[in-house]
């Protein structure tokens, strides 16, 4: 595996499967009475968040702590975009503090790549969402969740039909998911108005639909994306009502879903806009479970990138500790 995780393109098929398998192993830790492994003891992991994202930050923090890493949270208030401290100076500071891994969330697409490429620091860089580019660990946790429910015996997601619905243009979650889920054999349909689809989407490895009705009955997964209200002012759609009517997962569409189909959302949700409350809270919804799985998947990523003790040895420690208790 590469030293950094900046994009799903950094992962081979085998890497992706290994992360999911490792996450499945590590998920068992989360169910144990003592939710902790000593595998990254003495390592320092920095959460470098230039954008507020409490849920992603605490998910990474929990993951690192369960692996016994030391976690430093660095909320960079200013960035070079807002004429604050430059990314370079922040990186040099973290290097001076001896960070083994930096988990970065940034409003600028490509900021993690800059951090990784410029040799300002030696640790691993993990992209926790950059601008409208990618959010690879979100895609990994989505793949993990889908596999667990729909392909529990398989390595990958061959044949799973996934509809990704909403603001594809601005969504880093959608970009990472298209790359990862297709790598794992899933079939993607992007559902959005043409204004919220990227230029050249016809060459993406995905089908496109301009309404949710066309795909709802045939999908194994409907992944709803958050629609930001400010997009309306930028003329991407005329009104919330019209958007919701055509693209929202409402009660009627919920009923048309296959009984086995999953309802997903990366959060935070706009209940009543892209997803109705009954859809979000339905039995088919795995939205809360996505959060749980996020911790396991991020543990796996940290574990594999930082080259912790082999998992077999970890398993031994685990059983020893259990014996010890």
């Amino acid at each position, binding site marked *: 595996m590469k030293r950094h995780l900046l994009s799903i393109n950094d992962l081979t098929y085998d890497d992706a499967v290994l992360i999911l398998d490792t996450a499945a192993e590590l998920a068992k830790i989360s169910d144990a009475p003592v939710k902790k492994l000593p595998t990254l003891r003495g390592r320092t992991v920095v959460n470098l968040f230039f954008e507020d994202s409490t849920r992603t930050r605490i998910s990474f923090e929990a993951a690192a702590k369960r692996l016994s890493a030391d976690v430093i949270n660095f909320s960079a208030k200013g*960035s070079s975009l807002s004429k604050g401290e*430059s990314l370079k100076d922040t990186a040099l500071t973290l290097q001076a503090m001896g960070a083994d891994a930096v988990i970065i969330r940034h409003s600028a697409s490509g900021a993690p790549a800059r951090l990784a*490429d410029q040799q300002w620091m030696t640790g691993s860089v993990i992209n926790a969402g950059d*601008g409208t580019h990618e959010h690879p660990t979100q895609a990994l946790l989505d793949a993990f969740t889908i596999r667990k429910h729909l392909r529990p015996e398989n390595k990958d997601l061959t044949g799973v039909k996934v509809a990704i619905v909403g603001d594809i243009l601005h969504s880093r979650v959608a970009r990472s998911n298209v790359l990862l889920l297709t790598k794992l054999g899933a079939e993607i349909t992007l559902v959005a108005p043409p204004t919220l689809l990227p*230029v050249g*989407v016809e*060459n993406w490895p995905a089908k496109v639909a301009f309404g949710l009705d066309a795909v709802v009955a045939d999908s194994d997964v409907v992944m709803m994306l958050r629609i930001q209200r400010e997009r309306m002012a930028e003329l991407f759609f005329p009104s919330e009502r019209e958007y919701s009517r055509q693209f929202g997962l409402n009660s009627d569409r919920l009923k048309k879903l296959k009984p086995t189909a999953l309802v997903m959302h990366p959060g935070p949700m706009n209940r009543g806009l892209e997803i109705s409350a009954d859809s979000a809270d339905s039995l088919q919804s795995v939205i809360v479970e996505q959060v749980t799985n996020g911790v396991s998947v991020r543990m796996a990523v940290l574990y594999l990138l930082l080259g912790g003790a082999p998992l077999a040895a970890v398993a031994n420690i685990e059983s020893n500790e259990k014996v010890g208790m």
Partner: protein
Amino acid sequence: MSEISLVGGRNAAGAKINLTITDQKISDISNKVPGPGANVIDISGSIVIPGLVDLHTHLREPGKEDAETVASGARAAVAGGFTAISAMPNTDPVADTAGVVEQVFSLGKATGLCDVFPIGAVTQGQAGKQLAEILAMHESAAKVRMFSDDGHCVFDPLVMRRALEYVKMFNGVIAQHAQEPRLTIDAQMNEGEISARLGLKGWPAVAEEAIIARDILLTDHVQSRLHVCHVTTAGGVELIRWAKVRGINVTAEVTPHHLLLTDELAQSYDPVYKVNPPLRTARDVEALREGLADGTIDIVATDHAPHPTESKECEWPAASFGMLGLETALSIVVQTMISSKLMSWSDLVDRFSIAPAKIAGYTDHGNPLAIGNPANITVFNPNKSWTVNKDLAMSKSRNTPFHGMELPGVVTDVFYNGKQVLRDTKIVSVS
């Protein structure tokens, strides 16, 4: 009286030429061999051409002297084979008054290295609202003939119309940075498959072409002169071709970087490739080369845009637009246009010296190598190559996208007004 002879070289047409400069002028071009004791430079293997003329240079003085000064920009120009450059008005303060253009003009004179002709702003503060005092700038010591709000498109059609009309008083020209502002809010790179994948906001070709089309029609309507800065799209080339067929008085430029580089380079997220207008696709590059070869695009202009290191050593969206150009321009054009056999050396001299001097009215430049003409001359060895090293740039800045590239052709000697300002690739210190 000073006299110097350049012997053993060839002109752009390939004919042998021994050329003698006496004081400020060319005094002899017969093939006679200078007598013993004459001051002679052997330029065997080299081509001798009229000095290059750039109509699009950013010199950053006044206001941003950490990036470039008129003097450092002039050194970069001479190293690149230019004898005249044109300072864009986006300085601080903006060159929108006679005072500022005269300051830049006199700073240029003081370098003694090349002519620095200021370009005046079209509107006050480049804000696109009120016309700047265009006539005062024209009548100043700088004798400004070309006006541009470069970096800011003169977007308001009425302001553009008035500007085009106003400069007819002295046969001036408006140089337009064609960028529809509403279609390029926060734009970062060419809009296409790569911008979509990288999550960087797109700068669509149509935003350039819509303004070019409008300005062509306005220019025709008011019978004035339009110069389109840095054309980057295949569609833009088509529109200009269309205008020229109809006899509309429009000229256009292309930059060396747009003749060579494409938006694929943005995949590194390295802002050294961030430039406005952005690097486009391979198809656009091909159309630009064809347009330059067939004369649809009249000239090469560098859009030399120095920036301090910190403006590029950051996230892509936070970085400044622009790249260095003066020192690499000739070699890039040789590689893209001559090595590819799209253009002859005579075409190159036209696009790089004769045509730009004519557009801007720089009468001492872009003249044939003939007796009595001002000795603004560049000597260039097409058989040598060199490797670009940003740390050796004459410019104060280091933001060249060509760092590490091996390029054909070395500028060895430059004469400005008869005085040697570059000797064997080294700047001659000015007394």
